[in-house]
């Protein structure tokens, strides 16, 4: 297996992009990544997208994107794994390069979510849950994570304020990210007074609806050393795992086992453990998700995730900064793009390009991207080569 490096990264504009079509949003990010990499050939590409069919009525995405990128003819593959589509697409690109099948691979992720009504978006996102045995009974995605939160609070004493601190911390980071959809700070009080969506989760516990794309260019590490003019970032570890998509089928309702398993695989491949990770981008689709995920990744002990944001452990300047980009909460969550955007943030941090939110001396970071209520998870570890 060949070692793989990330040599180019790019994001499109993120937000409510009513004037931009799905295809142009993707191409915007892809061109940024190709320009950053300074390459003129792309051997193959992967497109992470959860449900352009329901959001935009458009499938057959890999072909349309390669065409509009001006690369018609190259092998292109669309990858779907709910909200983990982007991260899983990155892993497919990694496997493509590592295997020797292709050298220069573009991995993009995209979602255009604001063309449909709020009801339409709720419906589209709920397809990541079990249609017949969860959604049929009236549960929504905020509702599923609310049930995770309720269980975690009852078992470990996690408080409503601790949930709010996750959102406050991520908005504080996002306020330093000029590309975030909501780049401003919020207060614990504002979270606690925001509208209830599904008890105990309020609207400021939830990530937003976003149009946006992210893209990266990867190639063999040996080639990167020859052609790249930027600090080289290598992919040290990759882990991927699945679990039941119905929350009620899990023995433990607030442990994301797929995250634990994916992380174990990524740590093993990289030859490191949780204490060797300096910073991370994790899937904070809801505040409770970040709490459970940092437990599953081994950053804190089981049951202690609630204290992490409150105590400053996971803030910039803390022991392990989490979601320096602002996370899904503040940066935005165009679902298919999110996993790729995490790789963009990691790469920029490792190159020292993150401006005000730069993690000092960043040498190794981790990205965790999950689908549904944790029915799929992919974890990557990136290092300065």
């Amino acid at each position, binding site marked *: 297996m060949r070692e793989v490096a990330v040599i180019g990264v790019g994001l499109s504009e993120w937000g409510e992009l009513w004037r931009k079509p799905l295809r142009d949003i993707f191409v915007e990010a892809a061109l940024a990544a190709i320009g950053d990499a300074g390459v003129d050939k792309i051997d193959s590409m992967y497109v992470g997208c959860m449900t352009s069919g329901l959001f935009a009525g458009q499938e057959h995405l890999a072909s349309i994107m390669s065409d509009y990128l001006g690369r018609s003819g190259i092998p292109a593959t669309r990858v779907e794994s709910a909200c983990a589509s982007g991260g899983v697409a990155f892993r497919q690109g990694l496997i493509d390069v590592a295997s020797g099948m292709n050298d220069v691979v573009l991995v993009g992720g995209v979602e255009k979510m604001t063309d449909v009504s709020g009801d339409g978006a*709720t*419906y589209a996102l709920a397809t990541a849950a079990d249609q017949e045995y969860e959604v049929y009974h*009236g549960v*929504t995605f905020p509702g599923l994570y609310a049930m995770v939160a*309720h269980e975690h609070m009852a078992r470990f004493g996690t408080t409503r304020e601790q949930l709010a601190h996750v959102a406050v911390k991520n908005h504080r980071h996002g306020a330093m990210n000029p590309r975030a959809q909501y780049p401003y700070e919020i207060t614990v009080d504002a979270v606690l007074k925001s509208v209830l969506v599904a008890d*105990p989760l309020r609207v400021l516990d939830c990530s937003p609806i976003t149009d946006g794309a992210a893209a990266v260019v990867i190639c063999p590490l040996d080639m990167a050393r020859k052609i790249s003019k930027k600090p080289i970032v290598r992919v040290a570890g990759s882990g991927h795992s699945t679990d039941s998509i119905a929350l009620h089928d899990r023995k433990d309702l607030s442990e994301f086992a797929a995250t634990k398993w994916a992380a174990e695989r990524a740590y093993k491949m990289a030859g490191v453990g949780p204490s060797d990770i300096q910073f991370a981008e994790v899937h904070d689709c809801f505040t409770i998700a970040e709490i459970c995920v940092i437990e599953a990744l081994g950053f804190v002990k089981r049951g202690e995730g609630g204290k992490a944001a409150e105590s400053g452990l996971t803030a910039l300047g803390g022991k392990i900064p989490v979601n320096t980009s602002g996370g899904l909460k503040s940066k935005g969550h165009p679902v298919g793009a999110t996993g790729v955007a995490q790789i963009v943030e990691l790469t920029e941090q490792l190159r020292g390009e993150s401006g005000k939110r730069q993690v000092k001396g960043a040498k190794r970071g981790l990205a965790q991207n999950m689908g549904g209520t944790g029915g799929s998870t992919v974890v990557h570890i990136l290092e300065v080569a």
Partner: protein
Amino acid sequence: MFPARYWREIPQRYRLEAGKCKGCGKICFPPRLICPKCGNREFEKIKLSDEGVIKTYTVIRVAPSQFSGQSPYAVGIVELDGGVSITTQIVDVPLDSIKLGQRVKIEFRRIQQDGDAGILCYGYKCVPAA
């Protein structure tokens, strides 16, 4: 809701039909073709217990369109006696009195309706055990 999709789940939704693995005894709801525990492919048809306890719940305040007329409503994960857990609405109880660990029983109720001309969908909900 497409009628065929609704119709084929009726044995589970109306009668709580599950599959009990003839190899290891694991109860699967809905029934499966392969036992996730032992890999056996032979099952005996059984009916789930209609009583259990609330493991977790929430109150949905922003509901999908088919449920907007019911909002706010409680949804929980209930572990039925025998070990199978299901997602179900919790009804006939004040929303602020629901407790984790509370005993409930399953009743047959209307679940949702598809607009003015759509089909009515039935199934299980839980209510406080007497």
